[in-house]
């Protein structure tokens, strides 16, 4: 029998044939057809491929599928719930924090990972935490503003 890897993807149990050479990035993009996770460099440099693995923002191009067994993975497609956009997604739209939009899913997932760890991010912490995600279009200022606004909003919802 073929070996399979089982894990949880955007809240649903899934499985995929074991292939030790496969990275999470390409499994998502090809096998699961979740193309919101982008290839930007394949070398861990740019952050376009960022997803959440067990509560941490990671670079899916650097993660082999064998590391994913039993894990929980969230991609950009899994962020909205029942058609309702996540606060971060709304904030990116409201602040026009994108141009070509190619870096956007990675930016949002990385920010989501930061906020999971620390909901009280200061602007300096946002900048430091986003540092290794690249945006060639230069939407940086707006991305920082969007993340800052979303963090505030999420906090106020929580404490309400």
């Amino acid at each position: 029998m073929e070996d399979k890897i089982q894990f949880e993807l955007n809240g649903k149990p899934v499985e995929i044939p074991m292939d030790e050479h496969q990275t999470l990035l390409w499994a998502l993009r090809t096998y699961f057809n979740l193309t919101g996770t982008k290839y930007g460099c394949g070398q861990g440099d740019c952050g376009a491929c960022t997803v959440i693995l067990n509560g941490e923002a990671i670079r899916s191009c650097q993660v082999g599928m064998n590391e994913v067994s039993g894990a929980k993975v969230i991609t950009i497609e899994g962020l909205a719930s029942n058609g309702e956009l996540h606060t971060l997604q709304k904030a990116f739209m409201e602040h026009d924090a994108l141009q070509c939009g190619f870096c956007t899913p990675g930016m949002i997932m990385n920010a989501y990972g930061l906020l999971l760890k620390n909901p009280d991010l200061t602007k300096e912490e946002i900048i430091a935490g986003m540092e290794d995600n690249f945006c060639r279009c230069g939407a940086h200022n707006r991305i920082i503003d969007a993340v800052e606004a979303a963090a505030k909003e999420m906090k106020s919802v929580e404490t309400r």
Partner: protein
Amino acid sequence: MKETKEYNEYTAGETSVPGLRRRDFFKLLGGGLYVFFNVTDALNVLATESEQRRSLPTDYNAFLLIHEDGTVSCYTGKIEMGQGVITSLAQMLADELDVAYEKVKMVMGDTMLCPWDMGTFGSMSTRFFGPPLRAAAAEALAVLLDMAAEKLGISAEQLTVEDGVIISKQDKGKKIAYRELTSGKKIERYLDQKPEVKDYSEFRIMGKSFNHQDGRLKVTGEAKYTADIRVPGMLYARILRPPSHGAKLVSVDTSEAEKQDGVLVVKDRDLIAVLHENPEKAEESRDKIKAEYEFDEKDVNDQNLFDYLLKNAPEGQIINSQGDLDIGKRMVDTLVESEYYNSYVAHATMETHAALAHIEDEKITVWASTQTPFPAQETISRVTGFPLENVRIIPPFLGGGFGGKTAHSQAVEAARLAKITGKPVMVDWSREEEFFYDTFRPAAVVQISTGTDASGKINLWDYKEYYAGERGSDTIYDVPHQRTMAFGRGWRAPEVHPFATGAWRAPGNNTNTFARESQIDIMAAKAQTDPIEFRLKNLTDQRMIGVLKEVAEKAGWKPAASPSGRGFGVACGFDAGAHVAHIAEVEVDQATGRVQVKRVVCAQDMGFCINPEGATIQMEGCINMGLGYSLTEEVKFTGGKIETKDFSSYQLPRFSWIPKIETHILELNEPPQGGGEPAIICMGAVIANAIFDATGARLYHLPMTPDRVLDALKNKL
């Protein structure tokens, strides 16, 4: 006429055929009111160039369609790559036609649905496409009014329009919607006379800010870029690449690759590829190919580059000359002679080049990340032998372009592989391939010899640019004795470079503005005059004066001669019809040579601004992107071997570098100008001038890396 020159710069050499036959699109698109228009005719930009006129479509190259349901589509060969024309063009159309913005849909770049267009670059969509688009919308409105007049039995003058409904001015009860007029009809109109378009005072939608039309798709990951397109049975291709641009394949052994499960190996002359449904398997197998090469390298690298370029320079062309340089020299008290350099710069879009080719029923469809779908269609037809009408190019969303996606060789590769294998084939370049095949902004040298008299008036301007390109080489200052010479054809001069070069956001202008505005700053410092005052004294162009004064006021500029120790720099320039001026504040770490740009203020005169929000975003993007070529971005190479392969050896601007940005768009009722490029051109000079103001050290070489800053600090007088 300046625009003619600029337009032709891009069209020369292209041939063309309209994409879609008229009878076909009636079938495809259904009923409604069609208005066809020709971008070039309406502007008359090619009137003097009969030869090039022949190669452009003679009848129309865009049209708009008022559908039977009252919505409006505009079919244009332009593409959206983050610059936001999808929004601003829709605004123009909605405004002229008096329909809600939400009712307008832009259909862009699909060669089957859209008429021919040369490509999207040069900040031309708004400037050159906008006026005929507005005229077409006005024409459509006139036709609809005529039809309504007939239907309602009221003269057209007695009618008015509110959001797609034509209403009698006398009796508001008498009305008819566009929908009712166009339903069940196929009405065809061509635009040959310019109808009246709205006056600025009548705009309701133009001039207002709109968020990106495509925002929701992009924050949810639903937006499809080329590499996201899926076709059943598609294979990923991984292509054998030479180690250098000077390498020639002499022998190849693919036997190991062929042994891998499920692979397909293609060997077609220069194209050797491994295909697999799993991209990582394809790559693994491709890496098992053994290949030997013969090398014929140019003796040039990033160290001896500028000597090489000057040594191999072709003869210069005088592109502008006024007065007499010898007389000018005699009128000069202070002579400044400088040489400026800039290295090769990559486009480095976050999306690499990708294309998916799919053949069905003798027709080939290629989804491609390209700024030039129609030229790509022609190339693919020529290379694969499919007749032009059977080649369809669809450009999905582009993950950045900046000129880098005017080249489309990935689409040709995908098409060839699809034809050979009969399967749908995806060619999506790796980051390394992207650096290797990028059409870099050319390395360039500018030599300037200028002089002022005792009063600080510039009397002499002798300007020579090598390989940068003419764009932005205008003197802009009022100098009685001046000459500008161009050596080499700018980014269109492949012969000297060891690899491909091409248009890079505001081609030519980044280099030229860096040189000119640095030189002005040197003269101002020598004259011990505040750099803004010095510029104003030597300018007569009222719009340039306007942006300079605006930026000075908005930044709270306090006049002082440089170096003042404050770290403030200024620069101004002209690009794509727009005037810009920047002020920057920097901090220089004198121990490490690292420069931090803390604040950039930018004033832009772009005529009437269609979408202030969109234009602001472009200005911010220009400023942030400009930090890269100013401070770090430089392609390393040895002969044809590109040493820069990844983002650790090619540093893009990061979050921690980002300055506080303040943008100011002048409010003017003048024809709209380009907005995607102008604000990037000053970045080199404004930072160099600020570094000088902070430290007294002058930088002549872009990028101004820490090493170069340290050198300049050591060498300062």
